[in-house]
């Protein structure tokens, strides 16, 4: 009877444990290095990000400075919002998304007026958008208001607007185009606005309806770094800092020693609500050039409201910029936006969240292990009584081969608009495996 040798069993167990560690990702270590790889590659490629989307997208940001300057408060009173939105309407944007959740009516009591009248004033302004054929999307949670604990847009505001989903789960840090909700399949703001962009532009492969959009892979939003050249016409940009490529790399390696190398000002052209109040004809003409026919997103950055998102380049910024950047990605790449590689479950193989890239990385890992084995093996082997010379690589050449494989894999993924491989994880692993041989090489040379 043939008995497997202890050595081969040990090897099989080792191989199996490596496979399990790679696929199951215990403690999320591989996911962390995956995220870090993705973030750093976005940082390195951000300088080459095209500005086609930037020319179409504008954010109007209500911030604490605005509240203080106007001696008002948060939530912004409806009459102030009415003025803001009717001023914006006058500049005739192509479409507007409002990243404010109108879930609780905070109308003030006005003597001589029926109760809850202030929110009706805002609804009156929103209705004027519809009359002028300017799509207006309000943030929507996708939950029915009647259900327990659920909040959503006030009915009188929902009647005069279109919902855009802003709340979802199970997508990690990716941006879905549409999601199935208790209220039906709802599209997210980026796709809603992109459809409006496509009313005047030729767009290919646009999903026919929300249901088909929900079938598409979610987007891994890529961030640009250079702010809009129009920004300095309306704001003081003297404090804006854009780190160069070298600075980014330096910070990537020595992040513990220095301060963060991040772009301090938003990529998307940003206006203050006060900008919309300008009265000088020349100033209004300038605003018109910035807003007419553009896709406008209205959001807020108020301390204590918590709507922040993580940008690979800007740190934590208001959530409205995530929608703006997702829209920007859609304008730049259409439906060929960056996405994670499909999971095996997407291909009909029941394997949880294990994706194709995990398998590719595992193959690469196998290749690295083989190379390592070839470095450790004796130069000559005796098989069938014939002495045979093994092909043998030098340690540095073997490591260069690994690097080339990683670069090739990354380039292939980048070419097909997939998020990068776990470059950092693979590099670290290959360095660890080859370090002894490389050290020995240098010791021999010395």
């Amino acid at each position, binding site marked *: 009877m043939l008995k497997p040798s202890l050595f081969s069993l040990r090897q099989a167990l080792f191989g199996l444990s490596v496979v399990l560690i790679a696929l199951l990702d215990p403690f999320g270590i591989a996911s962390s290095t995956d995220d870090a790889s993705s973030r750093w590659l976005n940082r390195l490629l951000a300088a080459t990000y095209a500005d086609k989307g930037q020319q179409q997208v504008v954010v109007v*940001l209500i*911030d604490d*400075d605005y509240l203080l*300057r106007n001696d008002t*408060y*948060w*939530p912004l*009173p409806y*009459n102030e919002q*009415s*003025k803001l939105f*009717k*001023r914006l*309407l*006058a500049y005739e944007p192509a479409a507007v998304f409002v990243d404010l959740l109108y879930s609780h009516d*905070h*109308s*003030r009591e006005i003597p001589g007026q029926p109760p809850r*009248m202030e929110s*009706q*004033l805002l609804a*009156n302004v929103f*209705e*004027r958008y519809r*009359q002028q054929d300017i799509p207006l999307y309000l943030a929507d949670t996708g939950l029915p208001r009647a259900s327990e604990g659920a909040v959503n847009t006030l009915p009188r505001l929902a009647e005069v607007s279109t919902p855009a989903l802003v709340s979802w789960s199970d997508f990690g840090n990716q941006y879905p185009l549409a999601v199935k909700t208790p209220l039906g399949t709802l599209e997210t703001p980026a796709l809603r606005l992109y459809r409006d962009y496509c009313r005047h532009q030729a767009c290919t492969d646009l999903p026919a309806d929300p249901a088909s959009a929900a079938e598409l892979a979610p987007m891994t939003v890529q961030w640009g770094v250079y702010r809009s050249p129009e*920004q300095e016409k*309306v*704001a*003081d*940009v*003297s*404090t*804006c800092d854009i780190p160069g490529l070298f600075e980014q790399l330096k910070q990537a390696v020595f992040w513990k020693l220095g301060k*963060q190398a*991040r772009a301090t*000002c*938003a990529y998307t052209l*940003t206006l*203050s609500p*006060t*900008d919309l*109040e*300008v*009265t*000088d*004809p020349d*100033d209004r003409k300038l605003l018109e050039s910035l807003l007419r026919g553009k896709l406008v997103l209205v959001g807020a*950055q*108020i*301390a*204590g*409201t*918590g709507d*922040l998102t*993580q*940008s690979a380049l*800007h*740190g*934590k*910024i208001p959530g409205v910029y995530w929608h703006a950047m997702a829209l920007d990605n859609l304008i730049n790449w259409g439906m060929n936006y960056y996405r994670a590689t499909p999971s095996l479950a997407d291909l009909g193989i029941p394997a949880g969240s294990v994706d194709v890239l995990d398998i590719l990385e595992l193959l690469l890992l196998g290749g690295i292990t083989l190379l390592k084995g070839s470095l450790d093996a004796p130069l000559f082997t005796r098989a069938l009584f014939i002495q045979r010379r093994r092909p043998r690589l030098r340690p540095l050449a073997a490591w260069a081969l690994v690097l080339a494989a990683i670069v090739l894999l990354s380039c292939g993924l980048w070419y097909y608009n997939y998020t990068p491989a776990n470059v950092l994880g693979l590099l670290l692993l290959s360095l660890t495996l080859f370090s002894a041989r490389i050290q020995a090489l240098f010791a021999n040379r010395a």
Partner: protein
Amino acid sequence: MIKSSLLLLSLLVSQSVMATPEPVVEAWLRKSVAVLDDQGKSLRQVDSSSLPKAPKVLQYNKELDIIQVGLPEGNVWMDTMAVRVNPPLNIVKFPCQTLQSGYSDDHQNNSTIGYGAGCKK
């Protein structure tokens, strides 16, 4: 007597010269202007070419930022963004405020904003 009369007369004349003129709509800024009710709800659109030149501004609702204009068919409310009023109702220049920067990656604010004044009981 003549001197004091002249002084009084000159004062009266200078007062009338210096008094703020009544605001009028100097120009219609849109081809089509919305006619609103007093709550800012749009009632209909009118072609600005059919509107009279320099109608008087009768009222200014600062809360809604709309004006009441005297037209031959009656007094109607209009959005201030659709007209140029002389003298201007207010003057606002670009604030050119410093662009807000993002927070660092590890920024935390473990609080929730309190009620606004509208929620005071």
